[in-house]
């Protein structure tokens, strides 16, 4: 054996681990890789039987068209939908966090009844279809159907419960001594939240905001019901429309999918630690 420090049993163990990891990584990465390949293959290659797997010459023209760098005269759905998605997800995250931080503080430090947290979580767990019709008629009455503002209001309610929960669990584990010192100095609650709590809780708040943003970025059901054209349609709805239409160019559908996946994938990779901590803190710490 080439490596004398490795016993036979250890070697077998490593071979098994790496084999399993290889299968796992292929399972998660190959479909995504294929989506990317489809987006840069020619339409002929994609409809060839037997299928042509590797494109002869990668074709990035679809990305150029979607990003508005070149135009073929057809309507560009990507950029307006992207703008709507950024506005809607960003706006809803801001509103939700602004309401969630004081609520979480009340639960963690001001003895708000614990039942309130459960009531909030329960609203999040009721299926959206239960709220759908009254929200639809309500938005119609106040003229907010097919507007980003309408979606922001709805989404903020969708994001709030989880944001409150995550923020509360994270404030719970912070020491109270700093806040007590500030209180003795005569600082009021708002001042304590703003200048004592926010700075030390920032990593946790960033994680909560990030998860909220991703949830809103992903939302489809309400966006499908409450928007009707590119004035407010978000990316998920634009993609669903596009995939359902009689598109012959599967590469174009793939390219939009790749572009829509890039922001969340980048966020997920760079903020891996805090996202995973955020996702599991609720379950592990209770």
């Amino acid at each position: 054996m080439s490596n004398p420090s490795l016993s036979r049993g250890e070697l077998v163990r490593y071979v098994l681990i790496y084999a399993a990891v290889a299968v796992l990584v292929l399972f998660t990465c190959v479909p995504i890789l294929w989506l990317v390949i489809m987006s840069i293959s020619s339409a002929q290659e994609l409809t060839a039987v037997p299928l042509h797997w590797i494109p002869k010459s990668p074709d990035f023209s679809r990305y150029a068209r979607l990003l508005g760098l070149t135009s073929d005269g057809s309507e560009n759905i990507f950029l307006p939908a992207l703008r709507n998605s950024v506005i809607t997800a960003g706006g809803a995250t801001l509103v939700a966090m602004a309401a969630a931080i004081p609520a979480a503080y009340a639960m963690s430090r001001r003895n708000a009844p614990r039942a309130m947290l459960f009531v909030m979580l329960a609203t999040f767990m009721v299926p959206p279809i239960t709220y759908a019709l009254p929200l639809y008629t309500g938005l119609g009455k106040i003229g907010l159907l097919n507007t980003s503002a309408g979606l922001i209001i709805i989404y903020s309610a969708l994001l709030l419960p989880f944001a409150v929960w995550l923020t509360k669990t994270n404030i719970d584990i912070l020491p109270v001594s700093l806040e007590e010192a500030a209180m003795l100095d005569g600082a009021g609650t708002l001042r304590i939240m703003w200048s004592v709590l926010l700075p030390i809780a920032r990593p946790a708040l960033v994680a909560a905001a990030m998860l909220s943003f991703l949830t809103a970025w992903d939302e489809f059901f309400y966006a499908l019901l409450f928007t009707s054209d590119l004035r407010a349609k978000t990316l998920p709805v634009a993609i669903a429309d596009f995939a359902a239409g009689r598109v012959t160019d599967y590469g174009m559908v793939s390219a939009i999918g790749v572009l829509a996946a890039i922001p969340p994938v980048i966020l997920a990779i760079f903020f891996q630690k805090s996202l995973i901590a955020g996702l599991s803190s609720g379950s592990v710490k209770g």
Partner: protein
Amino acid sequence: MALSMTRDERKTPLEAWVLMAPALAILAVITFYPLLRTLYFSFTDAQISAAGTSGNFVGFDNYAYAASDAGFHAALIRTIVFTVSSVALETVMGVAVALLLNQEFKGRAIARTAIILPWAVPNIVNAMMWRLIMNPEYGALNAALTQTGILGAYRSWLGDPSTALAMVIFADVWKNFPLVAFVALAALQTVPSELYEAARIDGAGPWSRFRFVTLPGIVAPLLVAIVLRSIEAFRVFDIIYVMTRGGPIDSTKTVSFYVYQTYFSYLDAGTGAAYAVIVALLSAVMISGYILVIRRQEAK
């Protein structure tokens, strides 16, 4: 001692309510009010129209109709099949992957990043991606299976009522098992290693170590993840909408889709609302399960 009151025995100060007011106001308008309106609609024969949605009181007629509607029952059963299969597969795969990634090996960080990818891909992109892969004429799945000789001829995976639901479940599992894996992985790191040592000294094999040390150590957080995933899977809509639109021959029509069509294709607000209330009640059972699990965990 009379002086040492626990937190919960103290009175809630007015300030706490003021701090919670914005959050509660948003939730009241966007969730409580619609919930009550839906309940109200469910007792009327309201139709959705441009002129406004209103109708006459019809008592429990809509519920009686829901109780006898075979289509609704089939959709409910399909949703339960979807929820149970998806969540069971996600749990088994999630725990297995967590056990694997909890081992010491070079490149573990890369493997962890690789499993975060499916979770990060947006729902709709996930559905669209699998729809393209499972395309009957040009899809990569057919091509790969026939070129390797596993499959004799191309199949219409999403167009065949006997395979469509399984394919949608597959797409859901691919996207969501990482979530269970993260939770299980975080929980595994809280299991004290001395317990494993002790079990090993007692002569416990790998299976008994898993059964009597690992599993009890991660079961509580895992349960929370399972209930949360079930609540989410029960409302499945996005991937169905993109992958199959409920077809073929209704074989993937889940309750959310069924209610959606009753509302927005048949414009029947009364019947749709009654379905929606029933769906909400079924979810409430799962939500109480969730609260029970959390409470029990806190009591420990």
